[in-house]
């Protein structure tokens, strides 16, 4: 008993020192109910940016934000710990694909009742799909992302290679690999310029679901019969997010994984280990990246001409969506005020200002229509891909676990593991976890 009390006292002290709950200050002439401080947890160097917060506080004199930041890699762990505590923050900027996990665990507050009329209809389909769970919406979304293929035009021009800029003329992966092979300089241990840059996503190793599951999904077909391997390969996980067996390891999924493996082990057009800034340093002819990369290349001229072409496909074109987004903790003592902040900074002038600066893809159709930049090359490629064939990473209340298991499997396949054996293992590992409530 004494031990328990001591432990509780200590834990109480520790939790009190990291308490996040919003506080209301003493009444003032301008704010008769006192100034309310909302607490927000967000990853470092990510939205909402200081200019957004400043603008919002100026317009809402009786509310202000108390922001805590953690490195992105620690965000999910921090949210899990705070969810278990009695005093989580009011607001959290989290990774969109985790919406279902957090909603199923009761961590996030559904925001339907706080949405102004017309907002839900204004949100693009993949974002709405990603941020919803059991018919309720948990975040409006700050921005959207998709991947495209960037190329070094100076390296390709002498070879007579001109990648398409239109979705209707999108390359197949066979065409892309042919171009990558022609552009690559050296082979075996002596490659000076790779066809395709290594992945910079996740841990910097191959396999990250956001990028590399697309090689598998593209071997599927969403129009095929629902019990076919083609259909299951395209979705990667049953539509209710509860079954991996037969989906991630369907024959067509295995075929996709074999193709993914061949890029490293047969064609050898991309390295297994990371090379920082391979594309910018002219150590790779092509790289797969998001729309922010356009900003990076525009603002920091790499010293060569570059271009963007839609992401190649095998049977079906597909890109993953998903980005950081803002939600309200279900345990917030000020849900209405927190929801107001989440919705305000995701819409109107706040969203417009952020999108103009970041070149992230708008989640609101009205905003995308307003900004000419997203109707023109190269950013139009990202917007059109999302609109035509963008999908969230396979939604599930246990997405985080699926993500980890499949990422590890694809990493091993890139390193040379047998695709069938490794995907069967991934399905076996994921299945009992996906079945949990």
């Amino acid at each position: 008993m004494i031990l328990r009390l001591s432990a509780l006292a200590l834990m109480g002290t520790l939790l009190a020192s990291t308490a996040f709950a919003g506080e209301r200050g003493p009444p003032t002439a301008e704010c008769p109910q006192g100034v309310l401080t909302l607490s927000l947890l967000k990853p470092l160097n990510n939205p909402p940016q200081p200019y957004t917060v400043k603008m919002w506080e100026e317009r809402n004199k009786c509310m202000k934000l108390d922001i805590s930041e953690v490195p992105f890699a620690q965000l999910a762990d921090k949210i899990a710990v705070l969810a278990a505590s009695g005093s989580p923050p009011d607001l959290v900027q989290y990774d969109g694909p985790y919406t279902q996990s957090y909603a199923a665990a009761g961590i996030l507050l559904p925001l339907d009742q706080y949405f102004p009329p017309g907002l839900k209809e204004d949100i693009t389909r993949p974002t709405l799909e990603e941020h919803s769970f059991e018919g309720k919406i948990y975040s409006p979304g700050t921005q959207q992302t998709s991947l495209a293929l960037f190329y070094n035009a100076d390296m390709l021009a002498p070879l007579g290679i001109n990648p398409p800029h239109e979705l209707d003329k999108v390359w197949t992966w066979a065409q892309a690999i042919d171009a990558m092979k022609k552009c690559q300089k050296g082979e075996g241990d002596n490659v000076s310029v790779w066809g395709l840059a290594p992945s910079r996503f996740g841990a910097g190793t191959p396999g990250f679901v956001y990028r590399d599951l697309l090689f598998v999904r593209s071997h599927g077909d969403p129009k095929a019969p629902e019990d076919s391997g083609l259909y299951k390969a395209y979705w990667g996980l049953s539509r209710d997010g509860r079954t991996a067996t037969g989906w991630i390891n369907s024959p067509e999924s295995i075929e996709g994984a074999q193709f993914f493996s061949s890029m490293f082990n047969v064609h050898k057009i991309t390295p297994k280990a990371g090379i920082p800034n391979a594309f910018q340093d002219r150590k790779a002819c092509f790289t797969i990246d998001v729309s922010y990369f356009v900003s990076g290349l525009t603002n920091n001229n790499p010293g060569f001409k570059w271009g963007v072409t839609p992401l190649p496909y095998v049977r079906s074109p597909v890109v993953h969506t998903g980005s950081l987004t803002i939600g309200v903790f279900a345990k917030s003592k000020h849900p209405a005020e927190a929801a107001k902040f989440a919705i305000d900074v995701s819409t109107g002038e706040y969203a417009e200002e952020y999108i103009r600066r970041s070149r992230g893809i708008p989640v609101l159709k009205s905003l995308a229509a307003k900004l000419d930049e997203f109707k023109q090359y190269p950013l139009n490629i990202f917007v059109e891909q999302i609109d035509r064939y963008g999908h969230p990473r396979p939604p599930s209340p246990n997405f985080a676990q699926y993500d980890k298991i499949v990422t590890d499997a694809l990493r091993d396949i890139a390193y040379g593991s047998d695709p069938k054996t490794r995907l069967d293992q991934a399905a076996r590992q994921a299945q009992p976890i996906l079945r949990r409530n």
Partner: protein
Amino acid sequence: MNTIEKIWHWAAVGCFVGPFLIMLALFQYFPVYEMLRDSLYDFSLLNLAKRQFVGLENYRAIIDDPDRIQAFYVTFMFAVGVVVTVIPVSFSIALYLNGRLPMRAIVRTVVFLPVVTSVVVIATMFTFLYDPNNGLVNSALGTIGLTRLQFHTNKHQALPAVIAMMVWQQTGFATVLFLSGLQGIPKDLEDAARVDGCSPLQRIRFIVIPLLMRTTVFVVVIMTVFSLQVFAPALVLTGGGPEGTTNFVAYDIYQLAFYLQMPGLASAVSVVFMAVVLAISLIQMRVLRVKETQA
């Protein structure tokens, strides 16, 4: 001692020992109790309210799951690899340092320096050293005409690569222990052997090694425990891969609890691992006692 003195005596004892006992109970025994209890439940850290009693189901899952068995296997292979490499290497260096050969001070510093360096720093450093494209090790191999190795992407090379890293780090500590043992051997014994015509190798075989048995067993125990606790190389260098060949138990527990949201299973693995490590330690202590008796 009268009653008041006894009270003061025990009060003083309580003041000195009490804080330590409370801390010990709070941070050692209470977590062990919690771990034992959690191992009987299935739950997620995201929602502690959904906690389901499953009895010994988590323990059955360990036996049935080849991934858990593999984690135990690679951890023990790692420990064996480290111990059988560190012992002869550190013993040889200690012999060198115990002699009157040149540059002893520099060699001693160089050998011991990795011991005081963080494992995370060392693992990060080896990530660069082992890099297949620009790593120093592969550049050296290339210079002498050998094929580049895929240290952390090849399932046959990853574990030996991590063992080599750990050996590099731990050799200094084992060397210091052996050196202190060597310096404790009476000089006259070696002198007598020399007079009797023993060669240097015979002196090592018949005098040094038997007299260093206690030190050797101590080094084996320490290196085994260090090796079984291995975590950072998997986190920083290999991510537990490829194909789980560096998925050490401590890393597996971390992955199960925080990434796969199965803290109940992670607790069960911890309990089993604790029992196994305890058994190994007891066996080694028994061996130590036998050797002590023989000595």
